[in-house]
């Protein structure tokens, strides 16, 4: 039907503006590399079960292949006596398998909740060849906890960012587009809602329930969606009087179609530039809550909990605090650098860094009027 536009990236049509933004993003070296480092770390931790686990990845035993990392097997399978799940730290089981086959262990043979047995001294123990970042006071491997903690923090941050962006964009769009009374009452409501102290609410709540991942996400979402409303609302207030929006109205387009087709693309720029900062903010909040003890349930792999231990054992186990500090600092710095690059990429005042595209829509009035000759020819 429609002939393919020359610039395509997979199914996605790359417009000149987008191409310029990508070029600008790449030109921001620090942000560009941060994005890759962060992406690699994130993908790596997504497979945490295959990297740090207290059960083998693969077992070859007595002519059969087993995948304990994905499935539980009763101890009987491997020559034990009990019908219960295999305890892989048992020396007996290990010997049994070593005799009749082999097994492949993950890089770090501990999960975030595995107490490390046969430590040479009482936990917490300092970094060693067995435990690269040492163990914490419950004799759990710190590196394993960091890997799982990184994953849960980033997932929480991303989930909260996406959810609050969706809610925030919709709320901002409705307020900005309809304006008037809708806007007025919504704004007053937000002023009140914004002044609810979230921390106390969580403290009170934690007296009644044990907050888990989803509870926390829900509660935080109740308050975090307001961050984007301001920008989106401003974009919609501005854009609803644009001539092309008027033209769409004159054509009989419905409000939702105008909002999402004509105005939202303008507001998305602001939204996307904010997103990395919201993510780092969300991760920071989760860590803080865990640190205070109002966050994820006890025992979960959490960077905040690690930081808390770091404080409690500052003198006898400094490696815990140092690890917690560096991992949080690195993660948040990477996100902020990515955010800076994204912000620069969307900045219309930043001209194209790469050669080529000089005329661009954001700078039109000066740039494109230069062609009266072309006009006469048409």
């Amino acid at each position, binding site marked *: 039907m429609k002939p393919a536009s020359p610039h395509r990236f997979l199914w996605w049509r790359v417009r000149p503006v987008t191409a310029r933004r990508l070029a600008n993003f790449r030109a921001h070296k620090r942000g560009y590399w941060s994005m890759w480092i962060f992406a690699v770390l994130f993908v790596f931790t997504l497979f945490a079960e295959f990297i740090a686990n207290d059960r083998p990845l693969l077992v070859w035993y007595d002519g059969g292949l087993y995948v304990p990392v994905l499935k539980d097997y009763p101890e009987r399978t491997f020559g034990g006596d009990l019908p219960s799940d295999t305890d892989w730290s048992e020396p007996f089981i290990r010997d049994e398998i070593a005799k009749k086959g082999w097994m492949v262990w993950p890089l770090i043979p501990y999960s975030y909740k595995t107490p490390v047995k046969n430590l040479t001294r009482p936990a917490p123990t300092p970094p060693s060849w067995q435990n690269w970042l040492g163990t914490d006071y419950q004799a759990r491997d710190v590196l394993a906890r960091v890997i799982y903690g990184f994953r849960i923090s980033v997932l929480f941050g991303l989930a909260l960012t996406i959810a609050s962006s969706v809610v925030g964009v919709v709320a901002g769009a409705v307020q900005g587009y309809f304006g008037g009374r809708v806007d007025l009452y919504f704004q007053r409501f937000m002023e009140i809602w914004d002044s609810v102290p979230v921390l106390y609410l969580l403290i009170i709540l934690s007296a009644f329930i044990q907050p888990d991942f989803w509870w926390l996400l829900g509660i935080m979402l109740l308050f975090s969606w307001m961050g984007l409303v301001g920008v989106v609302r401003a974009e919609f207030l501005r854009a609803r009087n644009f001539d092309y929006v008027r033209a769409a109205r004159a054509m009989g387009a*419905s409000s939702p179609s105008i909002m999402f087709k004509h105005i939202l693309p303008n507001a998305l720029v602001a939204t996307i530039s904010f997103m990395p900062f919201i993510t780092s903010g969300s991760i920071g909040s989760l860590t803080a809550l865990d640190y205070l003890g109002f966050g994820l349930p006890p025992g979960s792999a959490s960077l905040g909990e690690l930081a808390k231990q770091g404080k409690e054992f500052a003198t006898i186990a400094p490696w815990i605090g140092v690890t917690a500090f560096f991992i949080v600092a690195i993660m948040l710095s990477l996100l902020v650098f990515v955010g800076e690059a994204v912000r620069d990429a969307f900045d219309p005042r930043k001209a194209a860094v790469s050669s080529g595209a000089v005329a661009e829509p954001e700078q039109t009035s000066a740039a494109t009027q230069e062609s*009266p000759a072309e006009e006469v020819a048409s």
Partner: protein
Amino acid sequence: MNAAAPTLLEVEDLAVQFRAGNARFDAVKGVSFRIERGETLALVGESGSGKSVTALSILQLLPYPAASHPSGSIRFKGDELMGAPEPVLRGIRGNRVGMIFQEPLTALNPLHSVEKQINEVLIVHRKLGRGAARQRTLELLELVGIRNAAKRLGAFPHELSGGQRQRVMIAMALANDPELLIADEPTTAVDVTIQAQILKLLKELQQRFGMGLLFITHDLGLVRHTCDRVAVMQSGRIVETGPVADVFKAPKHEYTQRLLGSEPRGTPAPVAAGAAEVMATDGFRVWYPIKAGIFRHTVDHVKAVDDVSIRVRAGETVGVVGESGSGKSSLGFGLLRLVESKGAILFAGRDIQPLRNAELRPIRREMQIVFQDPFGSLSPRMTVGEIVAEGLKIHGIGADDDARDAMVVDALREVGLDPETRHRYPHEFSGGQRQRISIARALVLKPKLIVLDEPTSALDRTVQVQVIELLRKLQRDHNLAYIFISHDLAVVRAMSHHVVVMRDGKVVEQGPTGEVLASPKEAYTRALLAAAFDFKADESGVVRA
């Protein structure tokens, strides 16, 4: 060159190049001209011809180093300004050479009072004390014709009208008795009646102080009435220069001839007898509420359109003329129910005022609008094809995408665009082409009525003429009714059968175009015509300063 009295300003082989990344753009390519004392030179050209860049390079005000001068020499009374050190340039800028910009609202600092703005120039260059500076500022404001000057000293730019702001700018430029005044489109942002006053003022001041005046404009009519010599610029070059009378009588260069030939002329095709009435309204009002308090209750109204009655027949153009703030655009928006209004709007015999949005949607197809700003009226994120096809989709016209695509192709062809352009984005087009896209977007729905809100105001004269011809042709072919909103009387004369003169939301005068323009009954219409066609300021007091 006479050693005793060197030429006031001599520009020789000036070139300006802009750089962005690896791309280079030559804005000015070897321009030479001179201005003597007491002389007015007009630099005329269309947008993008390099006239403003030339003016800015005289005072070395371009964004260096993005801009550079590959060649050229600029001598002010024999002194070379090109590459002169900053302190020398500062001693000349605002002191011996004054400059007036096009848009006074952005050229004045919004946080400084009038007094402070003008004082600054005096204090910097003349090292005057506060009291002396104030005295001189008062003198200047009186000189540029600001009434009650002493009271206006403390006023901020937003408290002044467009004309007053331009006068303040002139006062600033004149503060140190400059020998040369550079005026960059000084009247483009103001109404015609104000334009006439400003031109008169500049002329008087020039004669009084014997200044040289470099007048940059795109308006040839204005040049004929106010300047001594003219230099015509096209794509960075001066193609013709000479005394105004000679150039206008016998233009030598083909481009000058085309410019001079591009005054909108002709009249629209007559309306068929007994043509059906497309839109009619009586006692139509658009009142914008003024709100106050926490709960924004309405305390008063801005009567943008007050008690207006007009009717349009098929194939007829009703021209709505007025200065900025006269309510002409509000009238257009109100009639299409894009803003809230009161009073019956009969569209093809049916009152559309009480209809709900859903009921109105099918009727929207038959009444369309084309906006002034060809840059703002097209969504930058949609291709031309998507923009034109959007209305078809909304109204479910055309069986499938292919059928719609065929309609888009027809519409683009009809407005004189290559249908292949439908896969491109609006920013790739010039102003005139974008305006054609806007017209295609309206036309593809086969409307009965199109409201044209200043469709030609943002375009150069040569392009304007083409758009006017296109609109007249489309009217003939499709028997369209137009409501043509404009402040430009020359364009209105060429477009409309009937003309409505508006002021402060009320109709001052209306009637057949020929009658109203030839023998206006009202004093205001007369003042408007004198200002628009003869650049004469009205003395009777109908026009505000």
